[in-house]
């Protein structure tokens, strides 16, 4: 049976290194299968987070040959198996052990976003045209690969000033909701730092759910921020109408 070498990171915050493991290559195998094979036969103490193995729980995020991916959706036959396959933990988050990282910062950011708030007296009826946009955002499985690849977090570590693509998607799903009455544009500008995003679309490229994060969430939100804070014409119109800046 053909074999493939997996070069898996082993270690924790104190340090570590990549270790080679030879794994039998089985037809239809995904990277997570190979990692499980290592865990089952060669390194029972290998830490790896996983759950559904079906691309829906968002747990098995890692970096395979340098690219942020779900291990359960990365087929071995799509990788060059003539040389070692490098499997590393997500770079943007604090390392716990081996392939497991601490993603709890994301849940703290999530709490900053005001939840759905229905407009007073709104009729609880929605037209399909109004929810088409929002439904795309509901596909998010919170794998945090978009957060991992985003250079504002990954390279510049702006965790205190920037929410990241995942939370722009969540904000967009609320901001564009036909029944919601809250405004999050000030939060987006001042706390979630949408201005740090320079729309290089890496988040869209790695999203396993193929959500058009940049075009359908981030850019429309940036335009809403422009409406509120940068466009003198819309600001004037709002003033004439007597609407306050949220």
């Amino acid at each position, binding site marked *: 049976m053909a074999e493939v070498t997996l070069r898996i*990171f082993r*270690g*924790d*915050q*104190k*340090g*570590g*290194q*990549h270790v080679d493991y030879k794994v039998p290559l089985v037809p239809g195998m995904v990277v997570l299968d190979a990692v499980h094979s290592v865990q089952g036969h060669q390194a029972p103490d290998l830490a790896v987070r996983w759950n559904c193995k079906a691309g829906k729980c968002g747990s098995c995020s890692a*970096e395979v*040959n*340098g*690219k*942020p991916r779900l291990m359960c959706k990365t087929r071995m036959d799509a990788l*060059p198996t003539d040389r070692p396959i*490098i499997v*590393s933990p997500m*770079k*943007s*988050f*604090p*390392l716990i052990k081996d392939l497991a*990282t601490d993603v709890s910062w994301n849940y703290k950011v999530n709490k900053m976003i005001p939840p759905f708030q229905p407009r007073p007296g709104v009729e609880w009826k929605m*037209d399909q*045209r*109004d929810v088409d946009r929002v439904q795309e955002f509901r596909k998010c499985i919170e794998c945090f690969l978009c957060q991992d*690849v985003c*250079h*504002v977090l*990954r*390279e510049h*570590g*702006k*965790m205190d000033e920037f929410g990241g693509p995942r939370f722009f998607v969540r904000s967009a799903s609320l*901001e564009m*909701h*036909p029944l*919601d009455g809250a405004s999050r544009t000030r939060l987006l500008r001042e706390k979630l*730092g949408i*201005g*740090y*995003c*320079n*729309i*290089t*679309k*890496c988040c869209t490229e*790695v999203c396993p759910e193929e959500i058009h994060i*940049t*075009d359908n969430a981030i*850019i*429309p939100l*940036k*335009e*809403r*921020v*422009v*409406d509120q804070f*940068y*466009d003198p014409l819309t600001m004037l119109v709002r003033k004439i109408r007597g609407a306050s800046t949220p």
Partner: protein
Amino acid sequence: MADSDAAGIPRGFGKTEREDAWWIENLPFIIVLGAFAIYTTWRAFEGKFYWTDPYLSPFYSPLIDPEHHWWPFSPAILILGGPLGFRLTCYYYRKAYYRAFLLDPPSCAVGEGRKHYHGETSFPFILQNVHRYFFYIAVIFVAFLWYDAIRAFFFPQGFGVGVGTLVMLLNIVLLSIYTFSCHSLRHLAGGKLDCFSCSTFGPVRHTAWRGITRLNENHMFWAWASMISVGLTDLYIRLVACGAIKDIRLL
């Protein structure tokens, strides 16, 4: 912020675990945009060979003070700021030049090696927020270029069609699609509404938003196609105007 070095992942400019040729995707942009920038600058300052009846180069349209009554330099310098600003602040071009020229980042999951980063929160990049105003200006230019394209059917001898006519027509069609597939227009036309079904003109704006969304899905393609076409249209008119080639009359 993770002490990522603990995970054995290299840091620094160009450092990555990626094994593919990640840098190759930036090459077309560097080569084509670089060539376009050099050619456009040269043509803007050249100040001649921009008109051969009935063709007017898109770099010089609308033509202002060609006889140099009050403007001593090339007329192109007066107008190029509009289209240039529209492209510079365009959401597609931003992605491309942030990656290819500013290396911010050079590619996804590739190290930058830069310490300070402000994104679009401070000068000069905060000015990207005025993109919609450059869109308004671009619409005026599109109107002039449509006039020029229609004017290109009317030769001194009367109505006709030359290769230049078709070149100018194709150019303005591509420029129009690029302009009207703009992200800002998509927002202004309907994207800013939360509820299409309960807003004034909501259904009409939903139709407009959907149509622009379809065009917008290929905004990158239209950006490239229109940039190349405008450069080639100018080149064709220049070659005809300076006598290097002869325009073929088809009709």
